[in-house]
């Protein structure tokens, strides 16, 4: 579904992505793990078009996304739940959800989808007129996910959904991730929390210093080695 | 050197002080639209000292710097804790208040049978120290540039010192600087005071150069210009604002025949320049490369002995 080939993105002269290649299979959960600074967020931002890669390609079901504006990429069916949620703080929960459907015109279906979001995330329904900036971290995360889903994306990108959240909340987030996937959403997930991520992923990649260093199914690498490399990077001896 | 050239160079020299003043605050990350207030305070204070109190020029200039610096500290204390935009607008408000206060300010003393001193909107005439003491235009030019060279040398020292690094750290990311142990609030006030004093010296020199100041001169135009000099010339080094003044006044003089279109051309050029060089001609990157090239040139043996890599 989503194919990244040899993607190179740089900040000025510094290459943050040194030729990343990976594949997110349709209907599955693909996970990208790696230590801080590995380039995970850079990759997400590059796919979403916020950062413009220098070289390489990003294809969604064959259509080239590299070089498109972020708005066009959303139109193609990509939705990113960004790191740190980035909800619209002075807008209500309801308006945040509506904003997620910005590119859509089908009013009746949009309303129906909002109902579905409220059903899936009951706490959002409770707080629907509340300003998003006043929600707790976990609620904001759910709002960010729901907002992204409102565009009915073909692939949902998630950048560190567990960041800064309490363990119980993290568990709930991942439960929702599984649920979404069971209902048919393709998910490409970047995470630091390797333990939780590996429990839901069908396939995972390890990224270190701008390159993909491992690709496989959970269980192929011993879980603690994965966790070690995800948090600390490969040891020099490896 | 003819009088016209001396006049232009003197102008460049005096204006450079206010450019350096705004630049110093920019280093600490603060955009001030109000340095013209301290320029004004320095001008009036130094003028009063020589014309009304009979002080020598050196003492008057120090007095101008001191009052301007003190005023800057007083204003800086409540305003520096404001974040970026609010601080900038506060400087603008303060500077306009100063200008409007000078429009009401009257302080006249009878000297040699004539009343001399600031007279509200009519301004302050008769700051004739350099004429009464036979200081020729060339000599005064020399004084201006001697002081400017001293100020510039101080900046060079600052850039290499821990204080200078601390200033730039605050400018890059004040929170991070604080976490590294930099006394952010105190240093910001220090920078404000120094910047004010610098502008004050410039003001004092200006008052004696033109022998006449009026509040109208010290308006927002002067303030934004002083920022613009640094932006045009470059924020990487103290040479930048000086270059900016040179370009502005130099260009202004050289397109005198087109003077009706001066600002149209100049404004467009500045806007175009800022698109490609948002931090000026001598921005941090250029300065970095120049420094690196200079350092490697000083060690020719290394290059030779490494041979062809």
């Amino acid at each position, binding site marked *: 579904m989503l194919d990244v080939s040899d993607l190179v993105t740089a900040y000025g002269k510094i290459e943050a992505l040194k030729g990343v290649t990976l594949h997110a299979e349709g209907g599955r959960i693909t996970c990208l793990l790696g230590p801080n600074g590995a380039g995970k967020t850079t990759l997400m931002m590059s796919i979403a078009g916020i950062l413009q890669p220098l070289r390489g390609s990003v294809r969604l079901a064959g259509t080239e996304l590299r070089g498109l504006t*972020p*708005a066009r990429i959303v139109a193609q069916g990509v939705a990113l739940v960004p790191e740190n949620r980035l909800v619209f703080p002075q807008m209500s929960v309801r308006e945040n959800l509506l904003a997620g459907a910005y590119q859509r015109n089908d009013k009746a279906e949009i309303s129906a989808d909002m109902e579905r979001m409220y059903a899936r995330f009951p706490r959002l329904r409770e707080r629907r007129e509340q300003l998003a900036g006043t929600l707790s971290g976990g609620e904001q995360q759910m709002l960010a996910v729901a*907002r*992204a889903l409102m565009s009915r994306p073909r692939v949902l990108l998630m950048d560190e959904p567990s960041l800064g959240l309490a363990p119980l909340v993290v568990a709930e987030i991942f439960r929702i991730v599984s649920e979404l996937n069971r209902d048919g959403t393709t998910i490409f997930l970047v995470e630091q929390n390797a333990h939780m991520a590996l429990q839901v992923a069908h396939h995972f990649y390890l990224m270190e210093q701008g390159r993909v260093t491992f690709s496989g199914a959970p269980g192929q690498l011993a879980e603690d080695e994965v966790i070690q490399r995800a948090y600390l990077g490969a040891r020099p001896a490896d | 050197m003819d009088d016209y050239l001396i006049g232009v160079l003197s102008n460049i020299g005096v204006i450079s002080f206010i450019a350096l003043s705004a630049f110093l605050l920019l280093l600490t*990350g*603060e955009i001030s639209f109000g340095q013209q207030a301290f320029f004004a305070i320095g001008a009036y204070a130094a003028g009063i000292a020589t014309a009304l109190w009979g002080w020598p020029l050196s003492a008057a200039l120090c007095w101008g710097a001191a009052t301007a610096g003190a005023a800057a500290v007083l204003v800086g204390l409540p305003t520096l804790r404001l974040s970026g935009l*609010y601080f*900038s607008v506060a400087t603008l408000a303060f500077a306009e208040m100063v200008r409007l206060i000078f429009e009401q300010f009257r302080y006249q003393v009878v000297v040699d049978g004539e009343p001399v001193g600031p007279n509200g909107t009519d301004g302050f005439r008769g700051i004739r120290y350099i004429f009464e003491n036979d200081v020729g235009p060339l000599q005064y030019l020399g004084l201006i540039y001697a002081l400017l060279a001293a100020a510039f040398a101080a900046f060079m020292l600052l850039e290499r010192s821990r204080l200078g690094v601390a200033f730039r750290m605050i400018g890059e990311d004040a929170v991070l600087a604080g976490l590294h142990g930099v006394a952010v609030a105190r240093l910001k006030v220090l920078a404000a005071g120094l910047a004010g004093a610098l502008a004050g010296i410039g003001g004092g020199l200006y008052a004696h150069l033109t022998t006449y100041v009026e509040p109208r001169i010290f308006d927002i135009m002067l303030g934004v210009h002083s920022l613009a000099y640094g932006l045009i010339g470059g924020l990487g080094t103290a040479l930048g604002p000086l270059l900016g003044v040179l370009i502005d006044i130099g260009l202004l003089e050289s397109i005198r025949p087109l003077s009706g279109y001066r600002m*149209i051309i100049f404004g*467009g050029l500045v806007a175009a320049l800022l698109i490609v060089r948002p931090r000026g001609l001598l921005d941090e990157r250029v300065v970095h490369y120049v420094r690196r090239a200079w350092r490697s040139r000083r060690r020719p043996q290394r290059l030779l002995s490494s041979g062809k890599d």
Partner: protein
Amino acid sequence: MIDFVQNTIDGVMIGSSYALLALGFTMILGVMRRLNLSYGPSIMIGAYLGTVVYLQLCASPIMVVAATVAGAVLAGVYVERLCFAPMAPGAAIASMVSSFAIWMQLEQAAILVLPRHTYPFPPLATGAPLAFGPFLVRTDHLIMLTCALAVSTGIQLLLYRSRFGLALRAIINNPVAAHLIGINVRTAIIWAFALASAVGGIAGYLVLATDQQVTPMFGMWATFKGLIAMMIGGLGSIPGAIVGGLVLGIVEAHSQWYFGPQVRDLVAYGLLFACLVLRPGGLLGEAPLRELSAGRRGA
């Protein structure tokens, strides 16, 4: 007492146009997070176009309004394209200084085309002031107030009930997230500038038609009134712009009555300074927008 109320009334009237100026200013500031020093001058370009149309074509007031607004919008978009669009996210001061350079450019261009010190503007209303008991209200002031209310309400509706308004608010809240939900941010910003300039153009027309003349100083005057009113009332909100404008108008009217025009300006700036130091979020206490800073970090 009568004087006090009369001054307050006059202050509210003139303050309503300050409110519109503040409104346009705050729209640009909210969306760009940068100060546009060319805001007033672009309105002035509109005003000069209006006066040309008035003089050369003997146009009706409606045409003059249209010309003023059109000129302001064109100038505003010119400023956006040159001073704001090409600048990278960290180059906030560059944008501001660039907008200052263009301010000077626009001012000189206007003076070149129309070199006299003052040009006529069609009056907003003629006839005697209306009497409400012991108080007098000028008809043109009343028109000014009504238009200001209408425009503010219109902008409020636009921001909160339309798709475009949603896009603007999203950009104001979080520009990156705005990209991520598929808003074409570049285009939206151009439209925001155009809208803000149009509002400014209307405000400019109202003020100039009340004075019945336009001078080259108008650009700077408009920028400052808008800026002061915006900061007093609170950045980033329509109610803030309105409150700020009205407060500024009232304070000015009283200061001028008791102390004269020079002190009036001093009081205005003093009020601004006091507000900034004591209550930076403005009288309505809005959470301050993420600020600009001269460092490389920040908007």
